[in-house]
């Protein structure tokens, strides 16, 4: 228990989290501090390219073993299964409309890459190893949830989607799969796998050394955006706010069990818990907004960015690590 408190304190006092808090405070105080739109986009591509390359190089090193294939299949299963739990809770406990429940579920089945990056930085700092293929698992989990969200909406409210003249499902899926962040993550993963460790030597000084500093800048921006979204929490109500904390705990529990079943290390198990616990706010919001125009997009964004993300990066990461050690 002492160790948990110690690691939780380490996490809270890391530059990454402190920059997040700085952004939050600046936003609350209505400072004019903000990163330009183009820079945010550029930084997020840099981070995706960096983590993708890293994962690809580890894959080249470890090889495409059976455990990598199983891990990717398990990730696909998580992406399909978690939205079903979220949908059931939202629909039958929260009495939300079908489109709202389906849209929010899709966010929770997908992943937050920045939470994953913060967790992997935390692991490195605390001296834990983790499997490189967790990054491939993250890439697998980006999109299936969008398909499930669409299916749930169509299945439980077939008239709703048609009457709205929603964008055809095929087009939504195509756009989700070809979202810039997803393309650069998967592309860098392949480039890393092809070039292997030799590639790391040539691009490492650009892609790996400044990584944590750039991540701090991104977290600064996340703090600003999260505070703005959090300000809307009165609009989402008590039930949804509670859901924003409960759902990551459920997702983390399923992720921990998955990591354990896959026979992964403590660090790897924590990262799978993060994949289960986190909710997307990059690729999914725009995709679901186009697919389900009648769903209220501020519900999903307030939950994913204003509640679940801050919870996961501050309390979630050390808590899931504590649990990962406990089950090992």
């Amino acid at each position: 228990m002492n160790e948990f408190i110690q690691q939780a304190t380490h996490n809270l006092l890391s530059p990454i989290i402190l920059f997040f808090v700085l952004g939050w405070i600046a936003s609350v105080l209505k400072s004019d501090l903000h990163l330009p739109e183009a820079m945010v986009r550029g930084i997020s591509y840099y981070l995706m390219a960096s983590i993708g390359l890293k994962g690809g190089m580890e894959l080249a090193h470890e090889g495409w073993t059976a455990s990598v294939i199983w891990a990717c299949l398990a990730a696909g299963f998580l992406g399909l299964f978690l939205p079903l739990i979220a949908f059931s809770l939202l629909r039958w406990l929260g009495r939300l409309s079908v489109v709202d429940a389906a849209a929010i579920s899709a966010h929770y089945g997908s992943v937050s890459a920045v939470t994953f990056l913060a967790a992997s930085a935390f692991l490195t700092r605390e001296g834990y190893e983790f499997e490189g293929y967790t990054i491939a698992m993250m890439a697998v989990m980006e999109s299936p949830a969008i398909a499930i969200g669409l299916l749930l909406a169509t299945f439980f409210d077939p008239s709703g989607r048609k009457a709205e003249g929603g964008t055809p499902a095929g087009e939504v899926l195509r756009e989700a799969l070809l979202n810039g962040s997803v393309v650069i993550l998967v592309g860098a993963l392949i480039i890393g796998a092809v070039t292997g460790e030799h590639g790391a030597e040539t691009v490492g000084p650009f892609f790996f050394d400044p990584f944590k500093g750039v991540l701090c800048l991104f977290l600064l921006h996340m703090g600003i955006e999260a505070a703005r979204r959090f300000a809307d929490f009165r609009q989402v109500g008590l039930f949804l706010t509670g859901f924003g904390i409960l759902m990551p705990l459920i997702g983390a529990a399923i992720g921990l069990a998955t990591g354990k079943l896959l026979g992964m290390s403590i660090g790897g198990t924590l990262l799978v818990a993060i994949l289960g616990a986190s909710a997307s706010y990059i690729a999914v919001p725009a995709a679901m907004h186009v697919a389900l125009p009648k769903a209220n997009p501020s519900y999903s964004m307030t939950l994913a960015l204003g509640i679940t993300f801050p919870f996961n990066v501050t309390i979630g990461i050390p808590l899931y690590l504590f649990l990962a050690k406990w089950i090992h």
Partner: protein
Amino acid sequence: MPYDPKRMKKVEIVIEAVKLQQVLKIIDQAGASGYTVHESVTGRGHRGYRRGGGVSDLYANAMIITLVDENAAVRIAEEVRDLIQDYAGVMMISDVDVVWPDYDQDQ
């Protein structure tokens, strides 16, 4: 050359960035010969302040300007009106005098 402007309709549309491509398609199908797009516009409307894109494209906006004849303007207006039921946006149509080379004569 004498000053000889052409009377046309200027259609200005501000719309969520996620719907930009669909609006451009509507404009093309209405027979417009071209358009101008401003990306990264921000502003306040019925759905509150839309600051533009950040990590997600959800709050990004775009503005499109096109010059068309009256029939095309009506056609665009009808289709875009349906779109801004569900998405943030506004549309303005005005009479303008357009000065541009007479491309028809070149052919």
